[in-house]
């Protein structure tokens, strides 16, 4: 069972994107042609795809003479309460400890997990007919190696280890940042969705890094799912009332007419 998590300390990230290339290289993913990078940015795309499993976000903040340039890598978050696992109709998407693992032999490629993921981290591969996402490099980890991105990072921004340990380090680092005056520094992924397999140190609010402030837990919320059933059924029932009423009325009118006819005779 996988017990490790990745620590992403964005305060140490230098936006070099070695992680993006390492991921492509290890997983033999082709480059995807982009016409140009995003407006005013070095960031080359703002989405994850079946062939780009991690992307680094670039955020520039200019205020007066002060300038900040923030970077954050995003990918499948390997959520404890994984939406993709909950909605997968074949059981291909599974949890194994911290890892959210796709059994590529079971996936039928209907794409429900794609819709469920609050991070947009899973995508359908047209050619393979199945979905693809960050694998936490389980094929490396199970042989005692570091995930490719962690191995490649030159800035000591990525670490890999026992999740509790990564959380402790993240919290300590946030303490240091706050001590330096970064009031909005915080962790991300410690408790969200039951705890993510990627634990972040952020220097600002999650939305600055294009991360959802409160990632949607809808897909794993079974009581709410039941509520939606009730709402739909109630609406169907509501809509059935006019149908019943007009047809029943004709029946009633007909039988009243028949009765009156019977009376007349």
């Amino acid at each position, binding site marked *: 069972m996988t017990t490790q998590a990745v620590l992403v300390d964005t305060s*140490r990230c*230098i*936006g*070099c*994107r*070695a992680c*993006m*290339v390492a991921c*492509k*290289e290890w997983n033999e993913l*082709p*480059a*995807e*042609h*982009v*016409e*140009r*990078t995003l*407006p*005013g*940015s*070095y960031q*080359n795309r703002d989405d994850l795809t079946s062939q780009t499993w991690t992307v680094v976000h670039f955020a*520039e903040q*200019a205020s007066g003479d002060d*300038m*900040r*340039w*923030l*970077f954050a890598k995003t990918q499948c978050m390997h959520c404890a309460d994984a939406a993709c696992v909950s909605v997968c109709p074949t059981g291909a998407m599974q949890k194994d400890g911290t890892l959210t693992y796709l059994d590529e032999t079971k996936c039928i490629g209907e794409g429900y997990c794609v819709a469920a993921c609050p991070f947009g981290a899973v995508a359908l591969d047209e050619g393979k007919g199945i979905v693809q996402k960050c694998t936490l490099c389980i094929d490396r980890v199970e042989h005692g190696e570091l995930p490719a991105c962690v191995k490649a990072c*030159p*800035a*000591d921004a990525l670490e890999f280890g026992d999740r509790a340990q990564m959380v402790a380090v993240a919290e300590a680092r946030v303490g240091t940042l706050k001590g330096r005056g970064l009031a909005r520094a915080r962790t991300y992924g410690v408790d969200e969705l039951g705890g993510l397999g990627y634990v972040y140190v952020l220097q600002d609010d999650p939305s600055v890094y294009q991360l959802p402030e409160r990632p949607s837990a809808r897909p794993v919320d079974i009581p709410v799912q039941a509520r939606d059933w009730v709402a739909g059924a109630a609406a169907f029932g509501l809509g059935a009332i006019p149908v019943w009423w007009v047809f029943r009325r004709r029946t009633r009118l007909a039988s009243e007419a028949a009765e009156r006819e019977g009376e007349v005779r």
Partner: protein
Amino acid sequence: MTNHWIDFRNADVIMINGCNPAENHPVAWHWIRTAMDRGAKLINIDPRFTRTSSQADVYARIRPGTNVAFAGGLIDHILQNERYQKPYVVAYTNAPMIVDDRYGFTDGLFSGYDAATRSYANATWQYKRNADGTPQRDDTLADPRTVFQIMKRHYARYTPEMVERITGIPKAKAVEIYELFSATGRPDRAGTVLYAMGQTQATIGTQNIRALAITQLLLGNIGIAGGGVNALRGEANVQGATDMALLWQDVPGYMGIPRQAAHPTLKDYLAKETPATGYWANKPNFFVSLLKAWWGDAATAANDFGYDWLPKAKGNYSVLEIFDSMWNGKIKGFTVIGENPAVGSPNQNKVREAMEKLDWLVVADQWLTETAEFWSAKRPLRDTAETADPTKIGTEVFFLPVASFNERAGSYTNSGRWIQWMEKAVEPEGDSRSDLWIVDRLYKELRKAYAGSTAAKDRGLLSLAWDYGDDPSFEKVALEINGYTYGLREPIASFAALRADGSTACGNWIYAGYFQGHEKNRAAARDAADPGGVGTYAGWAYSWPVNRRILYNRASADLAGKPWDEKRKVIWWDPQGGAQKTGSWVGNDVPDFAPAKAPGAAAKPGGKALDALAGTDPFIMKPDGRGWLFVPSGLVDGPLPEHYEPFESPVGNVMSPVAFNPVSKVFSGAADAKGAAGDFPVIATTFRLTEHYQGGSETRNRPWLIELQPEMFVEMSPAFAAKRGIVDGDRVQVESARGSVFARALLTERIQPFQVNGTSVDAVALPWHWGFAGLSSGHSANVLTASIGDANTFIQEDKAFLVRVSKAGPQ
């Protein structure tokens, strides 16, 4: 570097000025990060806000080309506020030396300037000497003619107000940085300076670095752990190339190339180029051993070891000169190995048009670079929508495919002077061959072609000692570079074994000891132990000279031989040390000093070489053993750094009437137009990206990297763009007096106008990686730059020039 990569982790303050390690040396960034984790502060000075800036504690935006002004302010701050490490400065630098009475500096010029030849005679920059030849000194530093007082007067002109006027950095910010960095003047504090092209690629590039050296000497930061003046070299083995005489004016090991006029014979060369004192007094050993390595048996005392066969310099052969000569039709043949001048050299229209005049061109490279394809229809022509027409170009072009770096063995010398051996990993593809094989074959074919010749001019070529095997062996070459005794052919362990009598041969004296045979390949050593904890890792690879990691490390100890800083000690004097137990220098590094010379040892009167230096003279390569704050000889454009504007500048020089470096050569052909500020009001600078590399052939052919940075662009501020009706993504035209490029506009607040002398001057920045060849092609920023460079090294001034920018239509 005086220090090395890992040593950065020892610093208390790291000043990153004129380089961008987070983007361009990301692997080395780890050591900077380590320092920061230990509490070090990061200062970043750059015209743009870069990925390095995003990590800095203090960032200052500096106008390109004004580094001397900024450093001058720092020097002034150190001197006025007495932040210098006084005992170090008095004993280890030439601060107390007294300079010639005739020395002067007036109206922007040092004494000895000849306007007609645009050159200096340095007679008035020399020390005043005692009768016995030793320099006169005032150790109290009070004499107005001391180097110290001269410097104090010179840099008093660089007040914070003046610094702000010139650099655009608000004086409060400048002073904040000066305070932060000058706090490392304490003996128990270490500050390091990192630089690269941002400082060197200027007409005053050498003086930029000199200003850093002065700063570090004043603060006692040379020779210590966590200190130094550290260049971040731009390629994996450019340090190795430089060591082997990358610059035309050197021969391997940083000796000067013999010149026809001054050195007609070996005797002339050795007499004029060998100082009597300091370690360079041993130059004849190195030079003669070099000749012996080249000509082997044919080099004897009788024929001056083949000196007459050596081509002598009769002029200037820098890249700027080469292309100027080529453009004037004087160069017929051109061989380019592993370089892409058709993207990397300045004034690209001149370069590419010059190449059209060649009879033949040989390009040896892994890729079909712009240089290899300068003739093709891919190349855009100057200022038109047309492209080159191969039918109109008569050059015969040969392309030799070269094996990749991992397809052959060899050594790499990194910025820290560490020579690391790499083995061959895979066989080369197809017909590609290593550079060694190509050069070896070239020589063998030439030797065959000239075999029957009896002409005197061909003797040198035919007499070369050339035996590296049928399939040339890297190890044989390495052995020659290392040096060996000629009789027994035994590898030497150090250049101390070299002689000037033909009994030793050595391809590069500073490398002596690195490769003493297959079994004793010290460049292949991989011992990761660091017993002293200062990161010297003496068992990992081999650093020149003789595995010294921190140069001038005698200066890490005080006059009594005790470390200035116990926490970061490098070497120290052990009175019972050494084989004879009579005392030696010991510690965490190889002493850059005579190992048995006591700290209190006096200089021998009339002594030669190191005997002329005392036990307190750490700078053993200098004739006076001192670190030179003031440079009496060796630099052509002044003993002290002085601010001049770049060749193309939007403003005049407020420090003096001299506009730009008075010694830099100005080319004035038809391809060398100079832009006036009225026509080209925007300051432009060039930069590098993490995702692309140099001239781009290696990275603009890699889909994963193109995916990250797909096209040529120009960075500008949103306000700048708005004034010109440009929105992000628009195709824009950037023009200089020499040519124009089209690029995509990238609007960012990381570029801002500069406040120059009270006026706001706009600025743009361009990456210079693109060219017309490759999977991802685009226009080359160097179309815009000028054929002008530093007066000493001739490196091109790419970091500051003038342009104008306008919105262009779609392609």
